[in-house]
């Protein structure tokens, strides 16, 4: 089932993705009409607060949305296939193979009762018919690639014998075992020290550049995105409110929410002044207000915002879902 009209270079094309959770309290539209493209070898930063739907977007791509959640609409085009319509077995053969995922908390991602070699070898053997020794070889190479010293010894260790940063490296090594075309990274450095974070980011950037792997980097940390991503998509209440090239969006944000997010980064504030913040909190997805979801926290909101804004292409490559964008600020 091929669809015409896609750029051939795109690794992933998400179109109007809708992932809803059918809870007792009502339908939670965690992801409500999200579209984006990730080019080959590029890094997309998916940014937003907790509960904005960025992680659910990631899990939707890899097909791991658990009940009561379900992908109810849209398409996820990957290598000519719509992932939203694949069978469980077809999806399994892609997972960890062509699409890999790295999780947020490295202390929780590795099984505490299985040795590292078991957890790596099983990943190799899940997708390729190779004997244990070859698989072990591959595991050892992958550990070496992510900068783990004496990988032979480390293979025999249990996860609790590793530090957090080392565990995340192991998780990344597992993700790299099959040289995937796409890695979905769900806040993989949030739980780490800032120095370890820097090392891991540099490592990942290098790997992506050398292997041509595309990355979706899910985070709430704009400074990470600034250094790593090529493109950025800002999510709010299950929708993308602004997207574009990372330098453009961060230097001249259009959506008031993006402006607020950037303003909330402490280092951006002047010394001695009270830190800036976005007032209020993300609205409950169970009862979103009509019109723009950011309306209640936005200083620019007026009657026009009672309508639901579309994503307007306001500058070259940069779009924002706002009737009152910050167009007056010119990119520096």
């Amino acid at each position, binding site marked *: 089932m091929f669809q015409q009209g896609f750029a051939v270079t795109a690794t992933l094309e998400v179109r109007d993705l809708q992932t809803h959770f059918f809870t007792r309290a009502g339908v939670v539209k965690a992801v409500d009409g999200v579209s984006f493209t990730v080019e080959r070898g590029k890094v997309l930063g998916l940014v937003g607060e907790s509960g904005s739907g960025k992680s659910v977007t990631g899990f939707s791509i890899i097909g791991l949305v658990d009940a009561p959640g379900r992908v109810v609409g849209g398409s996820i085009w990957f290598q000519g296939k719509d992932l939203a319509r694949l069978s469980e077995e077809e999806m399994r053969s892609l997972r960890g193979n062509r699409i*890999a*995922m790295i999780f947020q908390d490295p202390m929780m991602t590795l099984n505490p009762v299985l040795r590292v070699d078991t957890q790596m070898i099983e990943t190799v053997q899940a997708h390729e018919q190779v004997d244990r020794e070859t698989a072990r070889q591959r595991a050892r190479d992958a550990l070496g690639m992510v900068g783990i010293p004496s990988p032979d010894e480390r293979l025999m260790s249990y996860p*609790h014998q590793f530090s957090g940063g080392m565990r995340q490296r192991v998780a990344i090594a597992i993700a790299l075992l099959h040289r995937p075309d796409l890695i979905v990274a769900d806040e993989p450095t949030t739980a780490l020290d800032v120095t370890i974070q820097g090392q891991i980011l540099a490592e990942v950037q290098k790997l992506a550049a050398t292997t041509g792997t595309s990355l979706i980097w899910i985070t709430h940390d704009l400074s990470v995105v600034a250094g790593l991503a090529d493109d950025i998509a800002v999510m709010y209440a299950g929708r993308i409110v602004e997207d574009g090239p990372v330098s453009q969006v961060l230097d001249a944000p259009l959506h008031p929410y993006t402006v607020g997010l950037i303003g909330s980064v402490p280092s951006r504030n002047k010394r001695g002044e009270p830190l800036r913040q976005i007032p209020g909190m993300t609205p409950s997805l169970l009862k979103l207000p009509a019109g723009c979801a950011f309306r209640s926290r936005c200083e620019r909101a007026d009657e026009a915002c009672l309508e639901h804004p579309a994503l307007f292409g306001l500058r070259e490559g940069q779009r924002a879902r706002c009737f009152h964008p910050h167009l007056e600020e010119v990119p520096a």
Partner: protein
Amino acid sequence: MTVYLLRRLFQSLLVLVAMSLIVFVGVYAVGDPVEILISPDADQAERARAIVALGLDKPLWQQYLVFVQNALRGDLGRSFVYNEPALQLILQKMPATMELALGATVFAILVGLPLGLYAGLHPDSGGAKAIMAGSILGFSLPTFWVGLMLIMVFAVQLGWLPSTGRGDTLWGWSFLTPNGLSHLVLPSINLALFKISLVIRLTRSGVRETMLMDYVKFARAKGLSRNRVTYVHVFKNILIPVVTVVGLELGSTIAFSVVTESVFAWPGMGKLIIDSINVLDRPVIVAYLMIIVLMFIVINLVVDIMYSVLDPRVRLEGQG
């Protein structure tokens, strides 16, 4: 570790002393064994002689001191009824109870683990709900009644399995002969019922908890098959609590096999203790309870140590 062990041993000793005191006074309060043991038509002289022979002429505190003195030498007294050392009497009956308890444990694991796993993996299915309802029955139905029902159905009406005794034994064990094994089945199931329910509930809650862990999701994200995720990643994690509880329960299974042994006329320690209580055979009662307490202490200690071996993150220092 050594400090921990020493402290545990000292605590165990205190428990043993307290235990023996309570039983001694308790049995004394319940009744006078002389009334039961000595035939009613014995004359005064015979009575007096028997009382002296049993050591029952001394005041209670002296009797206790004599008991402690002997116990320190490994002698827990002679049975009033059988006129044999109480300890030996109990140890003779021990294999019967042991194999019954182990049989029950095997049943509990073989039946409880798969059912619990199913109930945990498909919590909303009808089968899972039936299993959980069944486990409530397992907890709440009285053991003696279930035992009687088992006998009625499988021994009397269907005639598949024998209902009393141990059958043929080899070196004192029933399970080594086909006939003995068939005798072992019904009482084992009866004794296992409570434990099956326990294992089902433990396994189910363990599975449901583990399924939500990140490492299970990560295992799926690696593209592992559902079976591999369930039987390796989930199963290994739930095994630790299940092994712990089944281990700890072994003691209570042995101790509470009394009812099952009575219903199935299984000649084990449980039946011995019930008979001994009926005739107030104090040395046997005391010796039995001492052995049971000792067994609990040892099992708890072994499980604690095993836990620290299984999970290197557990340290046994300090607390205890």
